[in-house]
């Protein structure tokens, strides 16, 4: 009896030890997968040949994306259509909300079990690419027509180490929207250009007439975007360049910060205590819904958000800029990116589906603008014909491309965004004066750029 008990105890102990060892084994393997990048590529090629053999039989592709209701329904409909056209392909949808999507994707990529076609956000690509050849180079495939995309745009946003790691699902650009019911005078319109000074004047004046009214609906993240545009118009470049060098001067940044403080003092924007509540959800600000805020800056894709279920009539206006600015201040980026992980078993079938999804007129008609204004010229034409894409928005996108949008270097940015947001908050809350904060941020920013450069 006693011996038996002892035996069981030992067995349990052995089991626990074994469990621990496998745990450790798993750990080292991930580390290995991260560093040995060559092996990832070779396995991609192996599976390529396997994919060729299997193309006669049934192919199952997994397609993962995030989104809201409309995007889910449209994408499911597109999948059904593709399956109807290609009976040998079954596509398993894996969709969900945005929460946690990135963590899940990173985990899956390190476990080589990501879906065959994945939707990625462009800013994540730099970090993913650093971990090795996790994503397939679309240049190597003949099954996708990359000529439908603007070449510089594709290069600027999606080329890493000479490989095109994805295609844009759509294009997104920052635009100013104004409430048509409130700002009725003819200074506002898609073809009118307002300077930063005029903006300050109009805002000050309107706040003086109605103390409840503020011209700009902004919070720290939007102020950050506006500052980037403001600096770009003076320097012609993004806040740093491809060599991780700062492009603006301390004085330029100080003037930018001073402008923010003046906005608050003149009632052009709400005080920091109020707008801080609506960070990342400025459209939920009751004042915006009640027409007590006039202008917002959004990514074009969030235009429907800005209308709050269509209850606000918004118009697009041009980027605020001085007539003699060097840069346009306009940012342009893919709304999201479709990529194919190199771990896929059917690379060619996945590429074919991807090509259909972004370039085929039928797909464009089903997907509409659920992923922003399509980046593919063919798809954009379909939406124009269907009158889903308004002439106004098409004009915004095309003029943004013509204006020479500011190019954001494809480099990891670390804590850069947070650093800027913190600085903006301090200026907004008047914890630090624009002079001091500009000096401090320039120093911190240079240090961060140096670190990032060394980390490359």
């Amino acid at each position, binding site marked *: *009896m006693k011996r038996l*008990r*002892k035996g069981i*105890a*030992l067995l*349990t*102990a052995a*089991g*626990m030890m074994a*469990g621990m060892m*496998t*745990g*450790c*084994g*798993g*750990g080292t*393997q*991930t580390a290995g997968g991260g560093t040995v990048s060559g092996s990832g590529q070779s396995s991609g090629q192996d599976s390529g040949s396997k994919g060729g053999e299997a193309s006669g039989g049934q192919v199952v592709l*997994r397609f*993962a994306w*995030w*989104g*809201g*209701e*409309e*995007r*889910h*329904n449209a994408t*499911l409909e597109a999948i059904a259509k593709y399956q109807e056209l290609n009976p040998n392909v079954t596509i*398993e*949808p*894996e*969709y*969900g*909300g*945005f*929460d*946690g999507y990135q*963590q899940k994707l990173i*985990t*899956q990529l*390190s*476990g*080589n*079990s990501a879906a065959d076609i994945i939707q990625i*956000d462009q800013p994540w690509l730099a970090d993913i690419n650093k971990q090795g050849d996790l994503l397939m180079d679309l240049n190597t495939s003949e099954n996708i027509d990359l000529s439908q995309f603007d070449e510089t745009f594709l290069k600027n946003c999606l080329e890493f180490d000479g490989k095109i790691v994805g295609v844009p699902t759509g294009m997104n650009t920052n635009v100013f929207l104004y409430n048509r019911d409130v700002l009725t005078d003819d200074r506002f319109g898609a073809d009118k250009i307002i300077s930063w000074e005029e903006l300050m004047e109009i805002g000050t004046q309107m706040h003086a007439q109605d103390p409840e009214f503020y011209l700009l609906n902004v919070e720290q993240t939007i102020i950050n975007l506006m500052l980037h545009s403001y600096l770009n118009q003076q320097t012609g470049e993004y806040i740093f360049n491809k060599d991780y060098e700062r492009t603006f001067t301390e004085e330029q940044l100080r003037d930018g910060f001073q402008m923010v403080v003046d906005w608050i003092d003149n009632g052009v924007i709400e005080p920091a205590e109020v707008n801080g509540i609506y960070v*990342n*959800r400025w*459209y*939920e600000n*009751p004042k915006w*819904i*009640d027409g007590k805020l006039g202008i917002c800056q959004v*990514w074009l*894709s*969030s235009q*429907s*958000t800005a209308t*709050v*279920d269509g209850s606000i009539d918004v118009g697009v206006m041009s980027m605020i800029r001085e007539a003699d600015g060097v840069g346009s201040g306009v940012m342009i980026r893919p709304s999201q990116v479709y990529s194919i992980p190199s771990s896929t078993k059917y690379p060619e079938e996945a590429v074919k589906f991807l090509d259909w999804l972004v370039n085929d007129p039928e797909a464009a008609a089903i997907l509409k603008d659920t992923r922003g204004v399509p980046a593919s010229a063919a798809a954009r034409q379909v939406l124009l014909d269907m009158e889903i894409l308004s002439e106004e928005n098409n004009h915004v996108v095309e003029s943004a491309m013509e204006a020479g949008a500011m190019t954001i270097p494809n480099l990891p940015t670390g804590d850069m965004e947070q650093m800027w947001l913190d600085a903006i908050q301090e200026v907004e809350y008047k914890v630090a004066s624009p002079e001091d904060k500009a000096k401090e941020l320039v120093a911190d920013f240079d240090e961060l750029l140096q670190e990032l450069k060394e980390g490359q």
Partner: protein
Amino acid sequence: MKKREEKKSVKGFLMQVFILLFGFVMVYPVLWMISSAFKENKDIFTDIGLVPTVFNFNAFIDGWRGVGNANFGVFFFNSFKIVIPVVVLTILSGLLVAYGFARFPFPGKKILFSIMIATLMLPTSVLTIPTYVMFSKVGWVNTYLPFIVPAAFSTSAFFVYMLVQFIRGIPVELDEAARIDGCNSFQILVQVIVPLCKPAIFSAGIFRFMWTWNDFFGNLIYINTVTKYPISLGLRMAIDNTAGSVNWSSIMAMSVLSILPPVILFFVAQDYFVEGIATTGIK
């Protein structure tokens, strides 16, 4: 004498008012969720009052339908398919292991016990990728096995520890008496320890139920197919803050439904549960 009593009752009255107010503040988010479920989507963030101007049940109907090829009936069913085995197996395996640690001397017991406590201290974020890689090698991704199998092998050290502490509090004399009456060690567990452990078992069960029911990250990583989503994933399925407007009213309506099972379970098992946390000292 009378004055003193009066003073006491005033004090009591003020105390009551304070408790009521404080209670209201604590419950407010829940009340807000329930009231939002009945509001029109556009009124949720503009209308501050808790009582909606118009009662609107559409959110429940729309929300239940879900998005795409799965509705909330499927999500509820999936959640139960995960939670029930996990709870039952956690209790069974936890009891066996705790019984071993609490009652039997065996070589390496001290070391093994400290290892178990060490796993309790380990942050889950450290384990995520290694365990994911392990389970994906075994081919268990997109099944419920990564939740159920670990539960069967008593990997939640927290419950083992809790049960060990509880069993240690049961007098050994009872075991001895049972042994004299002819029980073997397994019969002692079943007929003596388990009945006395009821409060601890109930606490463990309820905690496990709530944690598993509300777990988002674990489900998110392991479950890919939408028709296999449990509630926690289903609720967030159509929340995309990066674009488009979110249909908050249906999400709130489904959230209201999703908290029902834990709430019902809590009230049904309340007596045992309260006794359990009081006796094990977990608060």
